[in-house]
């Protein structure tokens, strides 16, 4: 089962894609670890997902902290703090 990873708003624009699917990378067990894995792509990825940058994350459409677990088949989303209303 693949991971589905979604990007929204300024993050989506920076990395140049809104969604992708790939296999859960070995050793990735949390949202933070996945973020670090994506950051290692360098360039816009390193910038958009930079450490210390205020981001929100969701696993299976529930907002969760970075320490939340990730498993194969999950839908993970990275986005900036929300600004609706």
């Amino acid at each position, binding site marked *: 089962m693949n991971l589905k990873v979604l990007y929204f708003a300024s993050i989506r624009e920076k990395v140049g894609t809104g969604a992708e699917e790939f296999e859960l990378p070995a050793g990735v067990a949390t949202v933070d670890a996945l973020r670090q894995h994506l950051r290692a792509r360098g360039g816009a990825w390193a910038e958009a997902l930079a450490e210390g940058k205020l981001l929100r994350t*969701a696993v299976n459409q*529930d907002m969760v902290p970075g320490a939340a677990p990730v498993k194969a088949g999950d839908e993970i989303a990275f986005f900036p703090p929300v600004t609706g*209303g």
Partner: protein
Amino acid sequence: MRISVQREDFDLGAEVKAIALNNAKIGAVASFIGLVRDINDGAKVGAMTLEHYPGMTEKALEKILAEARSRWEILDCTIIHRFGELKPTDQIVLVVVASGHRGDAFAACEFLMDYLKTRAPFWKKEQTPEGGRWVESRESDDQAAERWK
């Protein structure tokens, strides 16, 4: 209870009527409408695009409403949030809360907006004379949500 995430505009009068009709237990209806302003953070805003996370948005709004219902008597509620292209003076969001008495209706309406602003996955991008820019989240919004804890 009705939650809608939609492109289309809404009509406050029609929504209030739909909520209060045929339920004689409702003694109070409070509502809030958020609008697009033509100025923000010192720049003129010509247009706005609202992006959201289809699927999660509806789920997040349902959770926020469930939280409100656990705190106050809510006999009926409508939440409508628009997405897509909007321009100044356009309506963005509607919250209507019906209750037996005004205290619950006012409080729940304010709570729903405070939580929506910090928990529902919407993002605003403004078009200004200098180009497009994503609206930054405000600490005052976090503080507004915090006070309900």
